[in-house]
């Protein structure tokens, strides 16, 4: 997820520069704010189910309506609108979103250290 966040920001900035209006949904406004994207809607939902649970059509639609409303209302670049929706069961969310097998960079202390070294000293744009 780490680097995904920075890519998300980069993609949106590139598209907006090219003349497309964009808005993103984020579950990490802390990061979104740092990246600086034109418009964002934040929701405290877990990874892998950012629009709601599978089959939860009502929540998918509700978030979509909020997103389209935010597109029309945001007039200042960098605005993040926060939804008050909350995931009903935090423990289930913690169990359900993380993959059964951890991502490769998290599979050993050495690989985690490799990532931390890269974050501190590497060149992300290489």
């Amino acid at each position, binding site marked *: 997820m780490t680097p995904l*966040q920075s890519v998300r*920001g980069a993609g949106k900035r590139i598209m907006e520069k090219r003349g*497309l209006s964009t808005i993103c949904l984020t579950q990490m406004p802390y990061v979104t704010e740092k990246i600086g994207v034109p418009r964002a809607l934040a929701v405290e939902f877990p990874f892998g189910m950012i629009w709601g649970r599978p089959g939860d059509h009502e929540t998918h639609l509700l978030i979509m309506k909020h997103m389209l409303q935010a597109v029309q209302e945001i007039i200042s670049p960098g605005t993040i609108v926060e939804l008050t929706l909350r995931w009903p069961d935090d423990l289930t969310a913690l169990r359900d979103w993380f993959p059964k097998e951890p991502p*490769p960079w998290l599979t050993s202390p050495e690989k985690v250290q490799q990532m931390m070294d890269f974050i501190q000293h590497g060149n992300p744009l290489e």
Partner: protein
Amino acid sequence: MAINSFKFMSKTLAESLKVWPYVDTKAEPIPWTPLKKQLGECRVALISSGGLYHREDTPFDMDREKQEPLWGDPTFREIPRGIKQDDIRTAHLHYENAHARQDYNCMLPAAVLEELFTAGEIGGITDYHLTFMGYQPKPGVFMRETAPRMAERLIEMGADLVLLSPG
């Protein structure tokens, strides 16, 4: 900020996100393209970084990432409008894929977008939505090549508004 951005994650992941070197937004202003039309006239496209792809397309390269954990497949895929659940596959090692395999709308909400189009609330939908695999520790290729190509593809399809969501 009322939302806890780190609520659902491990300490290791949260710590790495807190120290990640993000774009310096003070050095470069945030780009801004105003919505040029009323929403009811806008053609809308979706983008998901959840690693979704059409079952006949090439999967995102998870094998290489397993060999090189600081590498992520920087390419993108096209998802045809109206794609059926059975035709969707996922390739992303950083979240539980089972939910999207059950209902891809929890990652790429194409069904509700179609409803809003039928109701006249948006003016159109692009023939394809776009996806990529969002784990990009070294996003140079993504930024220099993939994102500009995605932007060109969206313009080619007549998109006015792009709705992006993460994995």
